[in-house]
């Protein structure tokens, strides 16, 4: 904290353009690790990944390896994954269940909140062990099952970070009649040779779809035909800036019947539609079934990708991971969740009908930006933005409203004391 910023964020990130060096300069990544991934809130995991006491999952947050673990009292701690003694990794497997955490190097043992409980051969030590616990993330908050953390003691509350965008999480959670999500389906780790910021930008870019995905458009009939593949005049979907760097492509205006977003007829899953109406009432339940799930980025590392949840993870200046898991629903038949999993496998990840193409375009862009680089345009659609009935800045699907929102917020975070 309080480090000297070494890069001209003010000059190189402007309202209508951004300089390519923000994607290529090592100093920028170094600053991001502190300003974004340590000082701010980041998405860590979902409660359904660690349902039982002692359940843990490993994560990489910025440069820090951590694990999230549920203690016997049900609370979740996010703990730096290095022994307080000599720094060895404590949790080796990606996920698992532990009653206690024992380091495999010298056998130091900790409870599920990271407190030191046993040291082999204690006569050799003169130190006071009360300060030898594992380092916990000082701030951990959960919003409707989504667990966020910050390494910053003084970070404002999560509600302030999410702002109005908490409504996007609400919309995702309320695709389930029981308001429960199940993110235990496993994460596919897609390595992409581009700077991590291209991923949140691309995931809410409505302009590229017909150019990057023509093979998809030609080979497959889907809900995207009406949502994102119409001509400029006929497009009803919108792009939205929710503030705080949170962005969305809003497809609902293009949908006029229930389950269109699910790529099936409205009577395909009667038990699901009935349960939704029983849970939320005929009117609201019906509206949710037409509107569908959000397609939205929660700054900086979470993408609510319709029926997928995605994490962005920087690896180096020129590499990142795009990790996805299907967003399965509580309170529905297995056949609904099976369809969600199969759709996730179709669209997402290294083999995906969509993401395999996005990643190649991102890699080409990254390569092109090396050297002197240049300016990237952000101005599209500035003249036709408006504030919707809900108070959210909105524009045509293909406008760069989400990019501008991302960079406006990014700049304020990078320049913050």
């Amino acid at each position: 904290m309080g480090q000297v910023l070494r890069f001209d964020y003010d000059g190189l990130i402007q309202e209508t353009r951004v300089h390519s060096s923000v994607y290529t300069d090592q100093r920028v990544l170094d600053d991001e690790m502190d300003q974004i991934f340590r000082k701010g809130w980041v998405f860590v995991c979902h409660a359904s990944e660690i349902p039982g006491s002692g359940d843990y999952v490993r994560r990489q947050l910025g440069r820090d390896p951590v694990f999230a673990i549920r203690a016997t009292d049900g609370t979740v701690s996010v703990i730096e994954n290095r022994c307080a003694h000599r720094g060895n990794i404590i949790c080796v497997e990606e996920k698992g269940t532990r009653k206690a955490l024992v380091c495999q190097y010298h056998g130091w043992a900790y409870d599920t909140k990271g407190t030191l409980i046993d040291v082999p051969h204690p006569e050799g030590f003169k130190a006071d062990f009360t300060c030898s616990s594992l380092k916990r993330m000082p701030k951990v908050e959960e919003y409707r099952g989504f667990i966020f953390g910050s390494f910053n003691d003084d970070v404002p509350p999560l509600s302030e970070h999410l702002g109005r965008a908490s409504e996007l999480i609400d919309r995702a959670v309320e695709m389930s009649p029981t308001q429960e999500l199940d993110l235990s389906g496993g994460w596919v780790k897609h390595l992409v040779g581009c700077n991590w910021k291209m991923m949140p930008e691309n995931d809410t870019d409505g302009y590229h779809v017909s150019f990057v995905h023509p093979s998809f458009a030609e080979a497959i009939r889907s809900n995207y035909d009406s949502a994102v593949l119409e001509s400029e005049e006929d497009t009803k979907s919108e792009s939205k800036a929710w503030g705080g760097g949170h962005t969305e492509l809003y497809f609902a205006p293009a949908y006029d019947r229930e389950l269109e977003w699910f790529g099936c007829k409205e009577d395909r899953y009667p038990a699901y539609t009935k349960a939704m109406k029983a849970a939320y009432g005929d009117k609201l339940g019906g509206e949710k079934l037409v509107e569908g799930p959000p397609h939205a980025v929660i700054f900086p590392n979470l993408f609510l990708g319709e029926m997928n949840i995605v994490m962005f993870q920087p690896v180096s200046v020129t590499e990142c991971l795009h990790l996805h898991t299907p967003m399965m629903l509580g309170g529905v038949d297995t056949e609904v969740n099976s369809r969600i999993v199969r759709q996730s496998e179709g669209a997402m990840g290294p083999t995906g009908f969509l993401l395999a193409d996005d990643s190649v375009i991102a890699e080409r862009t990254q390569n092109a930006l090396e050297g002197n680089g240049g300016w990237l345009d952000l101005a599209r659609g500035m003249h036709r933005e408006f504030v919707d009935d809900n108070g959210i800045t909105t524009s045509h699907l293909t406008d760069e409203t989400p990019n501008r929102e991302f960079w406006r917020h990014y700049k304020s975070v990078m320049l913050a004391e």
Partner: protein
Amino acid sequence: MKVTIEERMDVEGFLFKEARYADESRYSDWESLVDDDMHYWIPLAGNQAEGELQVSILNDNRPRLATRIRQLNTGVRHAQLPVSRMCRTVSNIEIEKMEDGSFHVLTNTVLFEERTQTAAGLSVSWPARVEYKLRYKDGELKMFLKKVMLLNSEGPLRGIGFLL
């Protein structure tokens, strides 16, 4: 059941042809080796059971596989523009003949890939244990399962736009 020498030659011939069609990005030729009940599967975890609510890297039934090949054949699938230069080495071929006359085959396969789509000089190798199920149909072998168990299935994985 005992595998005859002729059957072994047929199975090996099938595997090498399948590898060559994949190496040469001959998508429709590759599809001609597939039976109507094909399951083309790249699981995420080695011990993943079929049909459970766990995500796979790829999990195509026959219609989904037809879509995948249709997409590749559009000529505008950026993930394979231009196509990767590929070389598969298929080895350690173990063949079991089942009661119904079909063959359960295990191989060790290494795919060497030169990724031509972005920057020059990026080579990736994809070692895998591969499981096939084959049967004779009208005198020709067809596959109805190809399960590719990548050594690094849990990632990080670069794009797999080709037929693995």
